[in-house]
């Protein structure tokens, strides 16, 4: 929250000077949400780019007071979700499965670790795809983007309690499904941080 306030203060004072940091701070989150909801790396990059371009054009038009009141992460997420929805509508949702295993390796990662992660990612992606849309979006915003529950609620325009329930229900289904599939739960467990 403090970070958000510093950021909005800088954006309000010097949009062009502060905007790059704003994009960098949110690039992974916005891109990941687009990727996991659209399932296509190229489309996800388009949506992420368009999200920030729209954000910039709005900020450039707005008076300072409005920027200062802004909660940047839910606001950006709403823009992303709108763009995702527009594309999904064109593409006919639910008929096309998510493309599995999209994962960009950090430069230093060893190939075998990368391979494991791709496998684990593929398994979770496939299962996530089977969840109802509402639960899926809530989980992606909470755990892939890393938003807090109030932020997810704001981005989705749903009460916090509803969002918590959706995330919880979705995760429970995922957990069950991962347990039912031996090979996939194996790769997931390998990937887990030691407790």
């Amino acid at each position, binding site marked *: 929250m403090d970070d958000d306030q510093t950021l909005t203060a800088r954006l309000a004072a010097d949009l062009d000077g502060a905007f790059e940091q704003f994009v960098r701070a949110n690039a992974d989150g916005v*891109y*990941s949400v687009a990727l*996991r909801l659209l399932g296509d790396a190229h489309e996800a*990059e388009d949506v992420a*780019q368009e999200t920030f371009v729209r954000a910039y054009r709005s900020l450039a038009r707005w008076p300072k007071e409005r920027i200062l009141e802004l909660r940047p992460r839910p606001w950006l997420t709403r823009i992303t979700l709108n763009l995702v929805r527009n594309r999904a509508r064109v593409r006919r949702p639910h008929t096309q499965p998510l493309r599995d295993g999209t994962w960009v390796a950090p430069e230093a990662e060893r190939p075998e670790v990368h391979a494991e992660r791709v496998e684990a990612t593929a398994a979770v992606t496939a299962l996530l795809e089977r969840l109802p849309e509402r639960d899926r979006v809530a989980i992606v915003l909470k755990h892939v983007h890393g938003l807090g529950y109030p932020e997810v609620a704001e981005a989705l325009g749903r009460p916090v309690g509803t969002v918590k329930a959706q995330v919880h229900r979705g995760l429970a289904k*995922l957990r069950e499904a*991962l347990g039912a599939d031996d090979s996939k739960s194996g790769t997931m467990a390998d990937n887990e941080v030691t407790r």
Partner: protein
Amino acid sequence: MTEQTPTWRETVAGVRTLRTRAPATLVPDVLAEVGIADGYASLPSPIGEVLVAFRRGPDGSDLVTMLSPAGDAAVFEHEHLARTGRPVRPVREAPAAVRRSVHAGRPVGIGFDLARQSPFERDVLRKAGEIPSGEVRSYAWVAREIGRPAAVRAVGSALGRNPVPLLIPCHRVVRSDGRIGQYAFGSPVKRAVLSAEGVDPDELELLARKAVRYIGSDTTNVFCLPTCHAARRIQPRHQVRFATATAAAAAGYRPCKRCRPVAAVVIA
């Protein structure tokens, strides 16, 4: 372990693996698109692969800021900062107008950012841009046309600092003695570009060695620079060659209004 249902924590950790690093080009793409920073890309051109930097102008048009032979990206970025005062980053895709222009080797729906050039340099580059494809002019011609007839050497320096060679056709300016002269991409490339545009550099040098500076037509009594399109349409049997404008004037010829081989004052 693998046969059991994963713990709650393991499930969350699994979902978190779906967080993905955004492609490295995302930030530069955004900054270039909104006009905060310049972007660049490697693009095919008539003289091979080149690095081209661009940004969105205030009116939404695409401005090309720098063009260099393909080479070290870090060197290009450093030079861009030094020349324009703005950082530049590689983007996923250049704007369509920029791609079209570089592919064609001439500006198609783009502008240039010459804010860092002096007014004199801008005049020189703008004048070079008026030279039609398939023709050449001399450094002295450019100097005279922009109203600075004594600044021939300065014209040469200004063209040498052309930030956007190829698209601003400094290659169409050659030495008065007919030699092709220097080029950002090297003299051989300058010859090749001119050849591709329909100028024969060997023939140009040959004419200069024979002290032929102007070509006239004995049917129209007009004299031109050798590469002027009007001069090249003259039938060989009607061609008259001159070493100096004075000789042409003495023979009763007037200068071509298209290629303006001599200053207007001389005509009177």
